[in-house]
């Protein structure tokens, strides 16, 4: 067993990279998805509908194909890549920043949807109450919206984290599997499996599964305790 889990330096590098990618992506995603979901939850125009549909679209394409389009767009010849280059920055293909952007796009729907649901169901009353008690919009967000939408936030963050962890098609294409830069665990497991090196594939898969399972249990366990407290409150 201890032998089974004797990770190579390359493994450690990938583990570290994966965690970094997942944390950064989840963080950015929450920052990005929260205002977007709020806007989507509160508005009713056709424009909202269109944006909401666009957010979900990345789901529909096969990841490597999406990755290819991103590669064209974010690479040195693509207009985003070129724009970045002309600003003296690096284009995004084959870089850690690039796969963060790709993960953001790819996991966006998983962050937006639960948040939007939660915000939509919050209703106006708690916000009206807080406003009457002198809370500014930002204050209301932090002290009313977030605590009351905790379930949605947890779901959004968990799904984003897990999805980023498992995603590899986009990352493979756009990231180029560079050790220490874009070669995350999922890519590594994929490579092992392709090379029929199942011992290593099993080892890393198990690691990811156990680790993720523990995170999920921790997160859901906390959330569950909270939401049961809140349950009788629906009508108060």
């Amino acid at each position, binding site marked *: 067993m201890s032998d089974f889990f004797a990770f190579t330096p390359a493994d450690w590098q990938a583990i570290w990279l994966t965690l970094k990618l997942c944390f950064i992506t989840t963080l950015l995603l929450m920052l990005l998805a929260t205002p977007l979901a709020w806007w989507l939850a509160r508005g009713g125009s056709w424009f909202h509908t269109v944006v909401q549909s666009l957010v979900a679209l990345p789901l529909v394409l096969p990841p490597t194909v999406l990755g290819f389009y991103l590669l064209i767009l974010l690479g040195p010849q693509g207009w985003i890549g070129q724009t970045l280059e002309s600003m003296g920055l690096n284009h995004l293909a084959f870089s850690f920043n690039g796969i963060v952007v790709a993960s953001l796009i790819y996991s966006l729907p998983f962050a937006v949807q639960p948040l939007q649901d939660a915000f939509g169901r919050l209703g106006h009353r708690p916000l*009206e*109450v807080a406003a009457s*008690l002198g809370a*500014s919009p930002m204050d209301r967000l932090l002290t009313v919206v977030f605590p009351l939408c905790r379930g949605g936030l947890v779901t959004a963050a968990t799904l984003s984290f897990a999805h980023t962890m498992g995603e590899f098609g986009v990352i493979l294409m756009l990231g180029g599997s560079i050790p220490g830069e874009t070669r995350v665990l999922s890519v590594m497991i994929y490579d092992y499996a392709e090379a029929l090196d199942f011992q290593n594939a099993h080892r890393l898969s198990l690691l990811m599964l156990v680790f993720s399972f523990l995170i999920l249990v921790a997160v859901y366990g906390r959330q569950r305790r909270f939401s049961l*407290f809140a349950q009788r409150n629906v009508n108060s």
Partner: protein
Amino acid sequence: MSLNVSVNWQRDAFCLQLAQSFPSKGVTALYGPSGCGKTSLLRIVAGLERGAMSNVSFNGVDWQNESLCVPLEKRRIGLVFQEASLLPHLDVRANLEYGWRRTKPAQRRLAPEEIYRMLALESLLQHRTDQLSGGQRQRVALGRALMTSPDLLLLDEPLAALDAVAKRQILPYLARVVRDTETPTLLVTHSTDEVLRLADHIGFMENGSVAPVVRLAEALQDPSSPLFADEGAVSVLQGQFVIEGNGGWGMFSTTSYHLHVRSSPEYMSLHSGSTAFQNHRLQIYARDVSIALTDPTQISIQNHLAAKISGLTEKDDGLVLVRLTLADGQLLMAELTSASVSRLGLILGMPVWALVKSAALLQ
């Protein structure tokens, strides 16, 4: 200086249309049947109905017009909804302190302990909101609004969910709070009793519009006031009150007559120390006033006032409302059956004795 509201708002089948100035001192009651738009009006004053075409200004400051809308949190309004709307993720204490923390220390006029005490909240502070009964929740909501020491209180039937005992206990405190802290208050209520106890002014609402706001005393002059639909007509006399002995009994006096009346224990405990009060209000239900042609003796009714009949209004329910002018010119109303009126041969200008069975000290 006052609260000016003008609204023209069509919402589906319902149309709220009014241009009204509400006094920015004391308690103004909004009284009207279910569905007449009371809640809608309060929400507009609070700035919660942005769709509504409306102009609102308070003490000279524009809160809302075509081009501007001061957000609710800048209006310093205390809001109590028809249903208690406690924040479910906070316990009772945190709910109460939510507004307190967000109030500048300089603006805090009310001490939390005092509010807790007057609303009997001390024992609830550690509870989660879902452990409260309906009445307890509403008390917390009331306390929470008071904790911000608001410039304007908007109360939407705040006591509807309280039981009679709790209501009677809290009413005088609420009255004192709005008076002592000089918090102008708009109070939506269905209860004549609450109006008589709390209101200085009253606006009758009907079908999306408000009749001009009048002083309560004025509204009580009108025998057909909607206020009387429930409990019948009421007169309010002004005078001096001097406490005599215990039990809250004392003498209510004007220049020309005295009445032996009683104030409530809650009232007493609020004013403990002093024994004489100028300019008090005495509320007398017309149904509690009888008329005698000669001053009767050997009868338990204590208060006999000489009066002259200044009006006889036959109502369609077989009752007659008799307007009596007292020696000092104040008005007292008596409700008699038309059978009694004809038996006694009552006519305008006739001198009679008004027998007052019971009277309640207001204020």
